[in-house]
């Protein structure tokens, strides 16, 4: 048994997330990963934008910041820049981070600033009634795509890799042990890290896509989120419609706040 009560603001429970929403499963994985990584809660800041996932900081007993839509990463950048000793965790969703906040995401990755972005991908705008997000799969139904989405979705992890993130992983809430492990690795990484966490939205996504029960969506994740080792042995045909999970990118490169500090030191000392 893990004592979650040590980490949460119990007075805010039960949380607002719908029955079977995966956001609570992710939150628990985050708390276990934080404990395992041994980081101090006093030196940890959790920043979120707007959306279902962005309600997360309201439930944790640490330094938290609930900001404006799409702008969690800019606020987090400011926090990290102001005090580079802090561990800065961004909680965001597919709508928050890849639509309105898309530019912030790619530029934080390019800059390689040491923040950890935990992106809950539930394939839909859940809070506002199930509109298509940039990650809604082609053919899936949404409030704004009642006959099926004709757009191709973003590969969010691929986007972060292309933009220069030093650590990128994908996880899902069915394989919850891997989810915790990926979050712990991201927390430990010096540099911009992103974990795309696949999580079910029964209310806005499942109901429109013949997976109305939370169990159906968990089964969908079980059958379609594929660990990297198995993924490598699959044919192109088998991979279609499925998602690779595990570490997708892990590279060391100069980190932004460290480089900034070096520049300031060199200008001050003339060396």
């Amino acid at each position, binding site marked *: *048994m893990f004592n979650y009560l040590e980490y949460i603001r119990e007075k805010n429970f039960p949380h607002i997330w719908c*029955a*079977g*929403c995966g956001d609570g499963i992710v939150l628990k994985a985050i708390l276990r990963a934080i404990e395992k990584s041994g980081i101090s809660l006093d030196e940890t800041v959790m920043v979120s934008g707007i959306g279902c996932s962005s309600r997360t900081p309201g439930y944790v007993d640490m330094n938290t910041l609930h900001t404006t839509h799409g702008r969690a990463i800019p606020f987090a950048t400011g926090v990290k820049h102001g005090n580079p000793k802090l561990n800065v965790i961004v909680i965001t969703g597919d709508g928050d981070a890849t639509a309105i906040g898309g530019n912030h995401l790619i530029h934080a990755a390019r800059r390689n600033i040491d923040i950890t972005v935990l992106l809950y991908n539930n394939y839909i705008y859940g809070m506002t009634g199930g509109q298509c997000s940039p990650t809604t799969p082609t053919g899936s139904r949404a409030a704004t795509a009642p006959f099926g989405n004709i757009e191709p979705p973003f590969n969010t992890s691929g986007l972060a890799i292309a933009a220069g993130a030093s650590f990128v992983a994908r996880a899902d*809430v*069915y394989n*919850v042990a891997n989810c915790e492990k990926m979050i712990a690795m991201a927390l430990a990484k010096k540099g911009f890290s992103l974990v795309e966490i696949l999580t079910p939205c*029964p209310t806005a996504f499942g109901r429109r896509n013949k997976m109305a029960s939370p*169990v159906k969506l968990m089964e969908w994740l079980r059958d379609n989120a594929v660990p990297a080792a198995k993924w490598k042995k699959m044919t192109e045909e088998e991979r279609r419609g499925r998602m690779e999970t595990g570490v997708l990118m892990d590279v060391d490169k100069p980190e932004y706040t460290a480089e900034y500090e070096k520049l300031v030191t060199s200008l001050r000392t003339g060396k």
Partner: protein
Amino acid sequence: MAEEQSASKKPAVIRIKLEWCKGCEICVAFCPKKVLVMEGGKAKVENPGDCIKCMLCELRCPDFAITVE
């Protein structure tokens, strides 16, 4: 060592906080030993003696409602 073994064989204590349980059924569906059932829209411990303490119900409960000891 002997003590550790006897500790691991202790029957599981599964607690469900009904005020927080939203009845999503994830714990019931994925319990490998069918320890849990649904009753009145909430999870209920039916066969605690069969529990192997795999912890999957606790880990996957979105509502912080299940603990296994």
